[in-house]
């Protein structure tokens, strides 16, 4: 069976991280989200993937050119006009029933297998969720879908739609018909099909996560890192202690006195320490340098990052190419953040720094601060407000 993955979206709510890449390419446990999705699909019975790309598609196509586990065909959605429109681009490659998955959804293999094996014409994966109002809340009767209510204003229901469906080939005609009526998103199309008395079966998914806001990356990283292959490569000096599941990539050098408690993933060509502490569940990308006496916990550090000595980083995201000079620290805690006009309360969050920033010595960041790309921050600053991309804080 084929699967269509919708990976054309920008992910505006994930800025500044999506300024240089589509949201499906954000890394968790050192692999893009999309790669985690493909890995889960490859042994579940899916034989071919149609990848609908759009925003910054070269990043996706360049990364997956060597991916041999499963056949990938690319289709381009030039303008982001909704999920149903994205799906319609795959029409020529579909001959029978198929699965559609949003590319930023991390789903487990068993749930996909269940979806494939289900014999109903239409089927949707649903999930129990503590905060269903964040998503589309799903109402079920006799195991069949009755209604999807997008982002309800009150707390109702327990189940949400994952956005993952098994659909028949005829869906493309329906999408076209509804498009003429001004309906562009897939869940509305499904909603209307229910009104037309179509039966949509529901299956409970085992594990499912999606990435909507920047802090989701930390939570998803924590989950995915548990599955990581823990082998040790590179050069390990004397006096290095590693405990638990630790992956160290080749050509990485861990200097003496480092204390690494897994689950931790460290990429290739890095230099860590001496005397640095890396605590769970931290991911460090390739070619990054962690200087002596630095502590990092529960964070996502991407490629080419340079973290100065005596720094303390927790529950944070540091994007590619950023330089933090010595004595950088951030305070974890609670904050209410404004993302694209919505107010979100987040617990236990650190700092989120975009690509290619340079932050000088002894800077402190308060909980939940988001710093854009290419910012320059002078020494001894206290960051208590978001900073837009390309700013200078003197």
């Amino acid at each position: 069976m084929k699967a269509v993955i919708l990976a054309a979206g920008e992910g505006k709510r994930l800025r500044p991280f999506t300024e240089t890449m589509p949201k499906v390419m954000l890394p968790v446990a050192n692999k893009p989200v999309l790669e985690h999705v493909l890995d889960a699909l490859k042994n579940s019975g899916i034989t071919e993937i149609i990848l609908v790309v759009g925003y910054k598609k070269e990043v996706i196509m360049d990364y997956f050119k060597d991916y041999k586990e499963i056949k990938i065909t690319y289709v381009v959605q030039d303008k982001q006009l909704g999920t149903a429109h994205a799906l319609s681009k795959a029409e020529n490659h579909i001959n029978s029933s198929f699965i559609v998955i949003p590319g930023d959804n991390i789903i487990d293999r068993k749930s996909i297998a269940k979806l494939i094996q289900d014999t109903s014409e239409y089927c949707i994966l649903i999930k129990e969720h503590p905060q269903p109002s964040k998503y589309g809340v799903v109402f079920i009767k006799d195991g069949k879908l009755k209604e999807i209510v997008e982002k309800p204003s009150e707390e109702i229901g327990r189940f949400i739609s994952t956005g993952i469906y098994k659909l028949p080939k005829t869906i493309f005609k329906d999408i076209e018909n509804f498009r003429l009526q001004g309906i562009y998103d897939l869940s509305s199309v499904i909603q209307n099909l229910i009104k037309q008395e179509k039966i949509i079966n529901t299956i409970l998914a085992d594990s499912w996560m999606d990435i909507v806001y920047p802090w989701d990356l930390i939570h998803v990283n924590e989950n995915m890192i548990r599955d990581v292959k823990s082998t040790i490569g590179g050069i390990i000096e004397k006096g290095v202690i590693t405990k638990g599941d630790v992956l160290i990539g080749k050509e990485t050098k861990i200097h003496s006195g480092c204390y690494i408690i897994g689950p931790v993933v460290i990429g290739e060509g890095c230099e860590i320490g001496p005397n640095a502490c890396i605590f769970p569940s931290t991911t460090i990308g390739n070619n990054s340098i962690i200087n002596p006496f630095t502590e990092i916990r529960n964070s996502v550090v991407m490629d080419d990052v340079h973290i100065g000595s005596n720094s303390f980083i927790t529950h944070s995201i540091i994007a590619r190419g950023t330089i933090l000079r010595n004595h950088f620290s951030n305070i974890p805690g609670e904050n209410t953040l404004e993302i694209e006009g919505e107010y979100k309360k987040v617990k236990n969050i650190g700092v989120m720094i975009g690509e290619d920033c340079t932050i000088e010595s002894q800077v402190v960041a308060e909980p939940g601060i988001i710093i854009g790309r290419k910012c320059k921050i002078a020494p001894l600053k206290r960051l208590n407000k978001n900073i837009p991309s390309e700013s200078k804080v003197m």
Partner: protein
Amino acid sequence: MCGIIGYIGFRNAKEVGIDCLKRLEYRGYDSAGISVIDKIQQVYKEVGEIKELEKKLPDIKGNISINHTRWATTGGVTKENAHPHLSTNKKIAIVHNGIIENFRKLKEQLIAKGYKFTSQTDSEVLAHLIEDNYKGDLEKAVFNALKQVEGYYAIVVTSSDEPDKIVGARKDSPLVIGVGDNENFLASDIPAFLKYTNRVIYLNDGELCSLTDKDVKVFDSNNNVVERNEDIIKWDFKDAEKSGFPHFMLKEIFDQKDTVAYVLRGRISEIDRKIEFHEKVENLLKSELDFINIVACGTSYYAGLVGKYLIEKLTGISVVVDLASEYRYFGPKKENSFVILITQSGETLDTLAALKEAKASGCKTLVITNVIGSSATRLSDSYVLTQSGPEIGVAATKTFTAQVITLFLIGLKIAFNQNKIGFDEVSKNILELKELPKIVRDALEKSPTILEIAKQIKHAKSVFFIGRGINYPLALEGALKLKEISYIHAEGFAAGELKHGPFALLTETTPVVAIATKDSTYDKILANIGEVKARGPTVLAIADDADTEIEKHADLVLRYTSHSELLSCIPIIVILQLLAYHVANLNGCSIDKPRNLAKSVTVE
């Protein structure tokens, strides 16, 4: 130069032959041909790329084939001139890469004997010459024929009288044997047959070989059988895909955001504050060095010129950069001098010849190359790989920046060894090197701006590039890139030299690209820009993004970010590469296979 393939074995020889040939297309692509023996020699050849030939090929049965993709050197691009060439009795077929220098005399002699020629090429002579020497044994015939030939060659020959045998021979052109199971291959280049077997036997100059489907025999220049061991090739030459990019060259320009980091891998440690190469290289760099020679061709030569500035600045040692085609005949080859040869492919003929001359004169040789296992790595005392992955686009891009960075590292190490710089300097430079991916990404983001500027100069008749100091070779390289792929005449000049002649060429239709970094000669280059503008041309300046002066002087400005004086050359060349690319693309030129050029030049 051309690509040649021979196949004999249990598979369909036409399918395997064409499959392998496609991987040699970068060597030449103005025409292609194949001859399969199925009772007689079945020859098919066409002008154009291999896919043109493939369209016209019927289903041919047969287990022995010779195949050719051509880059014309003697004789124009026509179907008759394409290889394979047949002998007069149509039984012997040959494919050839190289130049037969005395072909005219041989042709006269053969015509006098009654042999009939159908092309204007030098290669065809070989077919008739072998027929003339043929007495039932193809190897002896080829051996005797080649004794009369002057020049250089890699040839593959078959005879329909002996349909179970392929004969190959080489002299100064590459030819490798691929040893298979129940099949054997001959090719100009290993990647051609790597999909089928990873066992190779390297033919040495002057040697001949005879292949059956089960057997490989190698003969030396006296026609005695020699024992030869197989080498196992470990690398996996995957055909790079263009991914989302319309051209390999654009993809490779963008690859530089990663390749500038890969070239550093395993060589520098930020925390240990050191630069370290492989032992052989280290020993060479520790030895007494009072004079350094850099030898290369084309873009690598310009990388050498940039390297000269870097190494002289860091070490104070005199560096002389020579073109390989000149150095091999006329260069100073002082015993014990240090010679750095740069060749992306490791097979460039002139550079290899220079390497051999340098070694013969007792020089210490170091090769900078991108291809592991290439001839250059096997011949030199030591080598440093640029680790940039395969470069498919004919115009060199990412290998240029990798070569410059490698020369920079070498300069730093020598300077450190000779106490000209200490740990702090090394540390500072390492940090600057580590910033290169970011700096290249910044330069790449300027691509849309560069496209706009390209629109304004795409109709130019000539473009001049000027720079001073380290920017002078960048000007040369920028001009070469533009020339190579857009076919617009372009020339680079040292900014101070314009007034000594080239000024005469400046008009409104000859834009000038001025590289204006804020170094000690900044004021001079501003003055040069003024002089140029007085004569009409549009001036495009490449300047630092902190430069606020430049707008007052130049008509158009492209900015780069750099935190390092010595490494500003990297973002500047990325901008010039993109400029050349966009101009060529706007003018509809064939970017990955520019007309008349081939990637690795193995003719002189």
